[in-house]
């Protein structure tokens, strides 16, 4: 298991989990808030739809294409 930080709270996930999986396990499943103020979540799971854009260690990444790393800081309200 590895531990990361999701919206300020510690979360433990199995090694090999994507950040998209972590969002479902530890949060509301959403990756971000849209320009129209809606919560958005991963859809395609293969790096195409761009819905799962999320802030990871201050950089915007795709949650479905990023594996969780120890100490990673994921922020869905950035």
């Amino acid at each position: 298991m590895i531990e990361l930080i999701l919206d300020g709270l510690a979360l433990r996930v199995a090694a090999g989990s994507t950040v998209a999986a972590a969002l479902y396990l530890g949060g509301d499943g959403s990756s971000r808030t849209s320009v129209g103020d809606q919560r958005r979540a991963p859809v395609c799971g293969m790096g195409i739809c761009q819905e799962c854009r999320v802030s990871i260690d201050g950089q915007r990444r795709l949650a479905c294409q990023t594996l969780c790393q120890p100490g990673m800081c994921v922020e869905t309200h950035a």
Partner: protein
Amino acid sequence: MNAEIIVVGAGIVGSACAHQFARRGLDVLVLDSQRGGATAVGMGHLVAMDDNPAELALSRYSIELWRQWAPSLDPDCAYRNCGTLWLAANREELQAAEHKRETLSAQGIACQMLDASALRQAEPMLRKGLLGALKVSGDSILYAPNAAHWLLAQGGARITRRQDQVSEVDGNRVRLADGRWLTAEAVVLAGGIHASELCPELPIRAKKGHLLITDRYPGRIQHQLVELGYAASAHANTGTSVAFNAQPRPTGQIFLGSSRQFDSLDPQVEGPVLARMLRRALDYLPELGKLNAIRSWTGFRAATPDSLPLLGEHPQQPGLWLAVGHEGLGVTTAPGSAQLLAAHLFKEPAAIDPSPYLPGRFLPVPRPTEHSA
């Protein structure tokens, strides 16, 4: 008679024409195949272009009409009066900027030169070393698909819009895909790149363009940023060219163009062309490399040999009126184009000289048939 006017094409030009005729009290039927054209994919930059006097006259007049409409546009048209900065990277371009300033000023278009430090202050994301820019304050941006909807909605009950594919035009008649013919006092062909399918004699070529939009990064740029080499790229007649063009979307996204390619009708995004376009953009905005792109797509401009639209009656087909060939400037020049076409149809004096846009410059008037004695 199925309507007083039939407009083929519900893009920005067809919608502006329908709007204009409805305002004059005519019943308008707008037929659109929903295949999409340049309106659906372009940048929506309302820009005074001055490569020749006729282009400037039509863009200046049209931007004035957009400005008058701006307060009543729906919010989703996303109209913003952000202005354009024409960027000078070297001495030649600085001279070109000064020349452009004189040309635009002579037509009453507000513009001013920014020196290197004023430019840096206005747009700190631009790379160091640019010599200055010409700021054209009256240029704007909008979201063209919604602006087209707004124009049609302004016509109220006078405008009927139908999804239908037109398979043939013949003067003031159009044939639908199911074989039925519809007739009107006048048919307006505003099908952009698709117009050639109905009138193969039109001198229209497709110019493919690539576009790319980033994720939201609010406040990074303030104006539409265009390199002064843009006009050279925009008016090239062969080969593939790219020019830096960046737009600040109201969402905070950065919208990037531009590329031009001839003789391709393949809508596929082409990696090498997109790469060239992005390298050009990185040259002006080095920090772009740290931002994420979320979409890239292509579109086709309907280009005429002299880059001016065809506005007027088809010389060989009485009853068929042309409003096509706007190339990359159709969103800008739709309002003026519609006014000119309406002035022709109503035989009224036009606000600007309509002659440079008449289709007769490319389509010969047929000679009367000669009978042998």
